[in-house]
């Protein structure tokens, strides 16, 4: 069995009457990049902060690198790097001084200039923190977490507020860490981020994990329904396979789903060829990670038991 960096069983967390986390079982293997997805208030940050040692759990077993994080063990903190959602940095120190300050806390820190280089802040090396842009400060957050050369890195929404270029840059940083054998636990709102970075993802909704697996096969998205759509002339006759006028949308597109995309496409295209019509804008696609995510987290009622796999309610893309 692979060694586990994080092992969580039956985790519960209540704040008074509010049950924020309702029995989570999850594990992260050593060397894995694991993403925790979920809407605000789903219990993501609570879970991560229990693992980081900031919160005490109500019930359950938690092991992080073999330690109980609630113990506040210094030996554990020496092996972990944390990027919190929002934390300040002393504004009057420079980038290099800040990283040097934090790396001094660890027994085997990475060289300061190497860390600065990894996050691409070389040009800002001697600038004071107060002079950095928001994105640059976020990169400094990551740099501080890397200063102690951690085995395990917690990244809580690391790229929120980044422009696309900066996001790409941050992704490369995480990819590099993964290639060095580091374990990364990531939370994010961005599906493309999870898709690109994570070996496995878990979707958390209303305090429970509702799906877990590699991003490419999450909740059966590789074997589930296929979306087919095209844009006929307004009022034109529709092929039977498309399910009649019900599938015609107000924007003029016709969209339908099929469990047998090969047959459906064959029927659709034969129908079109027979009539000599062109299927404008014809598109065939699998549900994206975002489709699956929205379906899993979309209709959360506090009392409802979330289903483990997507139900067939035919929810449209949420954009």
């Amino acid at each position, binding site marked *: 069995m692979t060694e586990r960096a994080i092992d969580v069983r039956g985790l519960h967390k209540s704040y008074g009457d509010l049950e924020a986390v309702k029995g989570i079982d999850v594990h992260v293997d050593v060397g894995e990049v694991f993403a925790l997805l979920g809407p605000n208030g789903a219990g993501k940050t609570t879970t991560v902060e229990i693992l980081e040692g900031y919160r005490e759990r109500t019930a359950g077993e938690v092991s992080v690198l073999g330690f109980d994080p609630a113990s506040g063990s210094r030996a554990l903190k020496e092996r972990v790097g944390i990027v919190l959602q929002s934390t*300040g940095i002393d504004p*009057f120190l420079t980038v290099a001084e800040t990283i040097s300050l934090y790396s001094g806390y660890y027994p085997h820190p990475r060289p300061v200039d190497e860390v600065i280089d990894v996050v691409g802040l070389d040009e800002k090396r001697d600038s004071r923190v107060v002079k950095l842009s928001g994105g640059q400060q976020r990169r400094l957050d990551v740099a501080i977490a890397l200063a102690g050369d951690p085995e395990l890195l917690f990244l809580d929404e690391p790229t929120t507020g980044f422009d696309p270029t900066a996001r790409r840059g941050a992704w490369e940083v995480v990819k590099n860490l993964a290639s060095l054998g580091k374990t990364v636990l990531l939370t994010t709102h961005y599906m493309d981020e999870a898709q690109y970075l994570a070996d496995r993802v878990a979707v958390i909704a209303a305090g429970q994990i509702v799906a877990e697996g590699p991003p490419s096969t999450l909740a059966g998205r590789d074997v589930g329904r296929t979306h087919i759509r095209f844009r006929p002339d307004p009022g034109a006759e529709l092929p039977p396979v498309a399910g009649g006028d019900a599938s015609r949308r107000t924007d003029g597109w016709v969209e339908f789903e099929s469990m047998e995309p090969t047959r459906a496409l064959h029927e659709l295209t034969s129908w079109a060829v027979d009539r000599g019509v062109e299927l404008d804008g014809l598109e065939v696609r699998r549900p994206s990670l975002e489709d699956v995510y929205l379906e899993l987290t979309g209709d959360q009622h506090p009392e409802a038991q979330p289903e483990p796999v997507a139900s067939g309610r035919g929810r449209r893309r949420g954009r």
Partner: protein
Amino acid sequence: MNVPTLTLRQVRFTNKAFWRNPPAWFFTFAFPLMFLVIFTTLLGNGSVQVGGKEIQESTYYVAAMAAFGVITACYTNMAISVSFQRDQGILKRTRGTPLPGGAYLTARVIHSMLMAILLVVISAAFGAAFYNAALPSGVSLLRFIVILLVGSASFCALGLAVTALIPNADAAPAVVNATILPLLFLSGVFIPVGDDAPTWIQWVGRIFPVRHFAEAMGAGFIGTPFHWQDTLNVAIWGLAGLLLAARYFTWEPRR
């Protein structure tokens, strides 16, 4: 690195950041001197009875403002800056590193104490140059150093303890001033409290540490009798502050 080395290193970085914020340090040091000039100009022509001794008010204020400076640098600055760092998440970030929380706070206390000592030196030099203040020497100097160290450490501890009452950084100055300003007035720091003042004011002075601290500091500057009970009172308050801080101090924003 062991904890004392880490703590000293933390003091160095705290110090570095402190001096890079000129408005903060300038006013920390200028404030007591400014008050000294204002009070002596407004009220400094008479004399005041302290402990059965007649003292020039201008000399009295040198000692009072040195005490005020220590309280500002320790209690006020500690409470406000730590609340601010708590709101900013700097404390929470530090909590996630191997640096022991005690080392972080001890470093801040040591830095505030160093700044308080520097402030006292400046006040003493200023007072000696312009207001005929005597500079403590011999045994008096040793006693002065003891009360300075005990007082600055105690007011730092009380500053850490009061952060438990501060909900967020915006409220910090209000809470801090509400707790310290009345005491400064009732303890004779701003306006001398003579032996003929109302009994309840005398009692405020006897119970709370501000008057004890100011009088023990005054003993060094103006030659009034030094009582170890003053130092003891301040030390007990400091210890209480430390225990309260240990129990109620939080590392995370309270919003």
